[in-house]
């Protein structure tokens, strides 16, 4: 099982670094090409949210195992403003930035599990997982 690896998000270049890290880890864990693309795309959306809304934060990627299932876990953390209305933020097409409003709902669709913990003016942690088809 590969060790957890983290990417710091400070600029738009780091978004590419984070998604490359996620893709490489997914590949190491035995995910197929399409799942690798799903995982990399989800991380790209979440890392961009960190950059746009919090400015800085981190993306941590690790392999996980549960009941003989193998998967990948991605934790995206920031100390930004938090999400005021999660229900609204998860709605397709809703955006407060220059994006398309696809980031959160899109990333959720691409992953199997998706949990948001957020507190206003404290920060946001999004933990998402994808399991390998056995």
């Amino acid at each position, binding site marked *: 099982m590969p060790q957890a690896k983290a990417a710091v998000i400070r600029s738009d270049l780091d978004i590419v670094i984070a*998604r490359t890290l996620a893709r490489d880890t997914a590949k190491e864990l035995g995910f197929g090409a399409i799942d690798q693309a799903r995982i990399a795309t989800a991380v790209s959306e979440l890392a961009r949210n960190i950059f746009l809304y919090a400015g800085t934060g981190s993306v941590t990627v690790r392999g996980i195992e549960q009941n003989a299932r193998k998967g990948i876990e991605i934790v995206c953390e920031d100390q930004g403003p938090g999400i005021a209305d999660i229900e609204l933020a998860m709605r*397709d097409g809703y955006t407060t930035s220059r994006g398309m409003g*696809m980031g959160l709902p899109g990333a959720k669709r691409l992953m199997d599990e998706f949990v948001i913990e957020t507190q206003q003016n404290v920060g946001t942690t999004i933990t998402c997982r994808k399991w390998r088809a056995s």
Partner: protein
Amino acid sequence: MNSLRIPILKVGDVLIASIQVALHDASAVQFKDDLLQKIHDTKARGVIIDLTAIDVVDSFIGRMIADIAAMSGLMGARVVLTGLQPAVAITLVELGLELTGVLTALNLEKGLAMMQSQADQTEENSDATG
């Protein structure tokens, strides 16, 4: 920040840009600006953007592609997107970005043929009306 420039080639009245590296946001915006300027300078009638080498298209790049297609259209140039990998097509649709209104072709060769057949049609139409 060093923003990497995507080379844009001119063949007849078609511009061809093959994106070979992962685009970060600033380089995608730079590409949009460069391409629109080049359409203006060369009076190109068509643009082919080849994504064969690209393995991730997220919502930002997807929006940029849709914007480029719409803006090029306003300038009289049609955009054809070529070489989308299966995994990219699947993630784009799952993400909710179907790029409706953007013309696509399987590969560069088919993209060029599509561009040519449209140019021929336009000529026929103008012959018929003129």
